């Protein structure tokens, strides 16, 4: 559907724009003593022409102009169309003149049809104008659409970021930690204070790092270890941590807090379900230009497996994909006794110039 026809107020404005054209025709071609005849003849015809002019839209869609389609290729079609429209104008004028005449109300419009070439030329030239205007309209709406798309995708990225942030601070974790602090205040005030400080540091980290793009593996590991230290207070000897990274890997950059959901998953869905607990193992290496980080934990074999990875893991995968394309990957292996998450991204120690 033509965008002008689809909208009543736009259509009204469009038809109003044709009124001056009709008036120019009345004044230019009418006679001083027969304005009524000229108006009765030209104004309805102009309105009819307004609708014919809309057909230029489809012509413009059929013959788009861009780098692959130069204007001259569309010219023959436009010429033919303009000529047809000119002829149509002459035919319509002739018919309308006959109708007005037959009404016998003293109108003598035959004089206008006696010069068909004038009508033909006016019809054809106006149609070319309509074509030109339609090209402008199509181009501007296309640029508007692409602007809107860019805006939308920006919003989506923002939303994903927010969701990721919210997922990073798991309410279960927060309330359990607060409960540990509350319990420790009675029995071991200094441990309670230590827990408070750990929690404060961790929350500060997540808030500060949410905004920045990339941080070093070293920094990322220290955030994760802070989280694990808090969980160690809560779970006691059931949780142990083994964190290793090669020297070159430590300098590599990762999206901030990318490991956090993996480690949280290892604790909440792994260690916390084992009576005797276990060790969360984190290892970072550089291999063949790739930074590979593995987070693994023992898991309860009797526990029903989840059919799909949880939301936290899906967000990690989504984030890797949007930041690195196919080069950013998360592999998950959910085995009988062990759960393994492997992150692989291109190794880089400096932020690449963004091409956005």
């Amino acid at each position: 559907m033509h965008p002008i026809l689809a909208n009543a107020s736009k259509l009204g404005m469009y038809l109003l724009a044709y009124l001056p054209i009709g008036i120019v025709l009345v004044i230019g071609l009418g006679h001083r003593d027969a304005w009524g005849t000229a108006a009765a003849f030209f104004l309805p015809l102009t309105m009819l022409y307004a609708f014919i002019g809309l057909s230029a839209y489809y012509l413009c869609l059929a013959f788009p102009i861009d780098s692959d389609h130069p204007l001259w290729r569309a010219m023959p079609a436009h010429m033919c169309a303009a000529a047809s429209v000119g002829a149509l104008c002459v035919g319509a004028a002739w018919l309308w003149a006959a109708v007005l005449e037959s009404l016998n109300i003293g109108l003598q419009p035959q004089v206008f049809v006696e010069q068909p070439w004038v009508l033909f030329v006016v019809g054809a030239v106006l149609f070319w104008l309509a074509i030109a205007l339609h090209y402008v309209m199509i181009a501007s709406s296309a640029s508007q659409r692409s602007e809107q798309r860019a805006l939308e995708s920006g919003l989506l990225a923002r939303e994903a970021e927010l969701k990721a942030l919210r997922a990073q601070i798991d309410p279960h974790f927060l309330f359990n930690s607060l409960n540990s602090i509350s319990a420790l205040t009675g029995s071991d005030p200094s441990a309670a204070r230590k827990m408070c400080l750990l929690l404060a540091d961790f929350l500060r980290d997540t808030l500060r790092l949410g905004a920045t793009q990339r941080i070093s593996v070293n920094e990322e590991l220290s955030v994760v270890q802070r989280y694990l230290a808090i969980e160690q207070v809560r779970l006691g000897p059931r949780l142990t941590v083994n964190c290793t990274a090669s020297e070159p890997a430590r300098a590599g950059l990762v999206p901030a807090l990318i490991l956090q959901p993996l480690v949280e998953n290892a604790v909440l869905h792994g260690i916390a379900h084992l009576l005797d607990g276990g060790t969360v193992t984190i290892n970072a290496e550089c291999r063949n230009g790739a930074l590979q980080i593995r987070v693994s934990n023992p898991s309860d074999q009797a526990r029903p497996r989840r059919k799909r990875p949880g939301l936290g893991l899906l967000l990690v995968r989504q984030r890797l994909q949007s930041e690195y394309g196919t080069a950013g990957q998360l592999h998950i292996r959910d085995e009988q006794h062990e759960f393994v998450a492997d992150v692989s991204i291109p190794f880089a120690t400096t932020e690449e110039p963004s091409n956005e």
Partner: protein
Amino acid sequence: MNEANQLTAIVVDDEAHARALIREYLMQHADIKVLAECSNGFEAVKAAGDLKPDLLFLDIQMPKLDGFEVLDLIGHDAASVIFTTAYDEYALRAFNVHAVDYLLKPFGAERFDEALELARIRIRTRDALPIRELLDTHREGAAIDRVLIRDRSNVHVIPVEQIDYVEAQDDYVSIRAAGRSYLKEQTLGELEVQLAGKGFLRIHRRYILNVSRLAKIELSEKDSRIAILNDKTQLPISRSGYSKLRGLL
């Protein structure tokens, strides 16, 4: 405080600090005597069976068996229960639907005392906890992945795919799995609902069959049929059971 008013309690939580906190709050209540502390669901089921406490402080998130599963297993031995949880929207929903009191971690001494007072009233009036309804709301009609069976103080966890068939025996069901039979206090109808969509079919008033164990169907006399399982066990098939089975195969 005389002996008759003394109440016994068990504290169940996988976190030592959380148990210590409840103990600390209980010091203000001379009428409550803590019989045991349990750090997981298995211990809780065993302790509840052995010690028969009046009151249970029960955490929801625990390894192996969560609070609801513990409740499912101790069923009729269930004392009055005070649930504790940090954050679990499903649990909270179930509690709210059935107006069951619970403690949200972290909780203060005042809130704790309030919950304890409510529990005392429930114990005095022998107001039973709506266990079945609570469990149903918590599961939200979802099929189960494993069946929990309590055998004196032991707990067996049987993944549903290991079950061959289930037979009704009065108020119990006998669950046949991995060459053994387990008795559970439950109706066959209840279990049928829980196993829906897991490849099980009620083939007879008294039997639910794991369809993957079926070897063949034979016609016995007087146009009744019997199911022969892979291990040569024979089970009767009712007429409606047969038409359901045919619809499935």
